[in-house]
């Protein structure tokens, strides 16, 4: 993966990359969003270009129906607006989540009184694979234990 470029005006990561052609010569500039929106210091041409770039992204493409939080806000803060934002933004966040979390299915505790059906299904799937493996390796003791676990899981998962 290529190294992220640094903004030419501050230490932030550059997210606005502009190429200008002035009198036949190519000039490349790299700014972070904050510096780009300030107009890249003195260069009027950059200012106009930066404006065009930011103008293109001033319309939110995802908005949470519950709290009206949108993707532009997320880009600004890196945080979501409310618990209901999660299903709304999940698809857009998929890549980021895989990068920071590696996996997309929660395994672990749940609030008191909550039956974590997704987890049970996930475990059921795992246990089935493990049982097949155990049988293939003629490890019948493990296979029997897994068979019991699968039966137990099936009683816990409500039929959809």
């Amino acid at each position, binding site marked *: 993966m290529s190294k992220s470029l640094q903004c030419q005006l501050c230490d932030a990561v550059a997210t606005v990359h502009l190429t200008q052609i002035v009198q036949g010569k190519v000039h490349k500039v790299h700014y972070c969003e904050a510096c780009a929106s300030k107009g890249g210091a003195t260069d009027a041409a950059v200012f106009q270009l930066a404006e065009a770039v930011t103008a293109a992204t001033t319309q939110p493409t995802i908005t949470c129906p519950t709290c009206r939080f949108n993707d532009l806000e997320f880009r600004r803060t890196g945080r979501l607006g409310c*618990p209901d934002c999660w299903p709304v933004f999940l698809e857009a966040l998929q890549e980021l989540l895989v990068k920071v979390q*590696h996996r997309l299915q929660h395994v672990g505790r749940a609030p*008191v009184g909550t039956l974590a059906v997704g987890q049970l299904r996930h475990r059921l799937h795992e246990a089935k694979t493990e049982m097949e493996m155990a049988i293939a390796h003629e490890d019948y003791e493990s296979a029997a234990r897994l068979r019991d676990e699968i039966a137990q899981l099936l009683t816990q998962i409500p039929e959809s």
Partner: protein
Amino acid sequence: MTVQDILAAENELTHLLGAQQAIVLSTRIRLARNLEGYPFPGWAKPAQRQEIAQKCWEALEKLPRFKKGHFLKMNELSDMDRAVLVERHLVSKELASGKSGAAVISRDQTCSVMINEEDHLRIQVVKAGWHLRGTWNIAEQLDDALSASLKIAFSDQLGYLTACPTNVGTGLRASAMVHLPGLCLGRQMEKVTRALNQDGLAVRGWLGEGTEAAGNIFQISNQQTLGLSEEAILKRLGGWIKVLVEQEWNARRKLAEEEGARFVDRLARSLGILRHAHLLTSAESMNMLSHLRMACDMGCLPEANRHLIDRLMIEGQPAHIQARQGKECESEKRDSIRANAVREALATFPEVVPPTL
């Protein structure tokens, strides 16, 4: 004045003699939780934030662990008091700078809950020394007790829903504060950090994110919160801390062996300077106290003196000094007060002797 009470009270990290350990200073568990049906604090309107705070506050008041605890609203505290709480790791910088949050701290200062920080609730449990299991058990109990009276935002697929994608899932950040002068002096920290990073653990300075490792103290914590069970997260951290402790001991033994008199000389000089200096900056005192802590671990100074060094490290921080004085003071004045306190505390320390390990 409750922050003064916190400063005056004897607690795990500054006074509990028996619990202090070589290398691991403290173990910490943090759980991020949010209420269903409310925007996260950063997006909530002031009235909503107040409603959230009210609900959380009421739920916390009912818990036996917070009986006679400290219930603190950030907007009612002075800048200095808030800075003291940050230095004690009882609240985060973010909560302290926001002014609209609150914190509830148990009387023994082992449990604290931040309200309206990045998430509605940040449950934190800290114990001196290495006590991952014990710390986790308390956090789990607190979490269960709170989720019995508050409707917590949870999804089957994503677990506990948090404001930031880096906390979603278990919402668990488990960490250990470790003192690694041997690895630092042996210039092995970079290698160690890389190995930890590769296995999904973060290495930070003493005051958390973006801070320097003053006094050779590092905070090691899990990065991944989704797709790993709490058990797996704790196990991974536990495994690495065990390795780190071993490597630190090896590094210290190697240094002592290779450097011989120079090793003892370094520790003895630190004691000499601390015992006689009239001006000590925070960084200088932290680094020299780090040498003394290592000396206590290795039998160069009595082990029983270690808790005093930990206390000097905590109480020598800028806001702690100013709070003791009851007023803000210039940095040179702080350096002088710090030096006086250290001189006084170390006056009865015996001489540094060669290591027994």
